[in-house]
């Protein structure tokens, strides 16, 4: 299903040791990427459920970035670019090209399928890589608190996915 997209499982493949500053960068980038997908959806989709979902993605992922920004400021940490952030961004560029090449129902399906795959990948990465690698307890707590929101987004995306195939 997600074969047309670069699978965003780079975290697990490389399994690098990340510093807290790098974990913060990965967290911010991962949220920015989903916002950028939602912005494409807002331009290209006419489906009311997808437009609502995209609005929620923009609001919620911005809220996560706001929390991360407040925390790194408090901790005096500067998010540090790293191989995982860069790989995420380059994969996202490929996905955005695929999304931008589609329209109508094909776009709606591609966007929704990608949201399901992306949220699954990010949840896995946070639980299995970022949380275990984070030393700072507050950063760990922030990451832990984000997971329920991501799981809710996944459930929502899967619902939209079912709705689309039912049409």
């Amino acid at each position, binding site marked *: 299903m997600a074969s047309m997209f670069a699978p965003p499982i780079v975290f697990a493949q490389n399994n690098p040791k990340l510093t807290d500053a790098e974990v913060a960068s990965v967290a911010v980038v991962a949220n920015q990427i989903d916002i950028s997908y939602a912005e494409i959806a807002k331009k290209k989709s006419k489906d009311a459920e997808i437009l609502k979902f995209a609005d929620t993605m923009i*609001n919620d992922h911005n809220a996560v970035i706001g929390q991360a920004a407040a925390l790194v400021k408090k901790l005096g940490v500067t998010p540090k670019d790293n191989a995982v952030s860069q790989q995420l961004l380059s994969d996202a560029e490929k996905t955005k090209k695929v999304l931008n090449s589609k329209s109508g129902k094909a776009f709606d399906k591609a966007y929704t399928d990608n949201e399901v795959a992306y949220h699954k990948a990010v949840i896995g990465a946070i639980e299995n890589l970022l949380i275990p690698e984070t030393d700072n307890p507050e950063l760990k707590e922030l990451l832990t608190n984000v997971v*329920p*929101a991501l799981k*809710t987004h996944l459930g929502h995306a899967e*619902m939209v996915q079912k709705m689309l195939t039912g049409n």
Partner: protein
Amino acid sequence: MKNYAFFIAAILAIGCSSNDELNKEEYPVFEEKHKTHTPDLNNPTVNSVEVKNSAHFHTIEIKQMKFLPAELTLQSGDTVMWINNDFVLHDVTEENKKRWTSAPIATGESWSKIVTESAEYFCSLHVVMKGKLTVE
């Protein structure tokens, strides 16, 4: 934030005492944002009324993408206050016919409603978030 919300919940419980004498049938859709509420803290009868009213005042916390408690049994005319202690916007919307909605509730804010009939509700921003009110 959390403490603030519960402080407000307590204030509203006191403030609602002034509605105790009202005929609720005439005000079936009475609802309000707590922020506009000005309780009369000088009213000497506040304490006794507060106790009397507390059985008819319920709070539901919204946290970690859940309504807590998700299911609530209450009596017709009871007030329910939803408090958003999550870090994202949520709303409270009647699910089947969209008969009522809170509109988005920001972090640390709340919304109250006098409930006169059972309802299944959800968050229209996160459609898998659901709750249920059962009027006995």
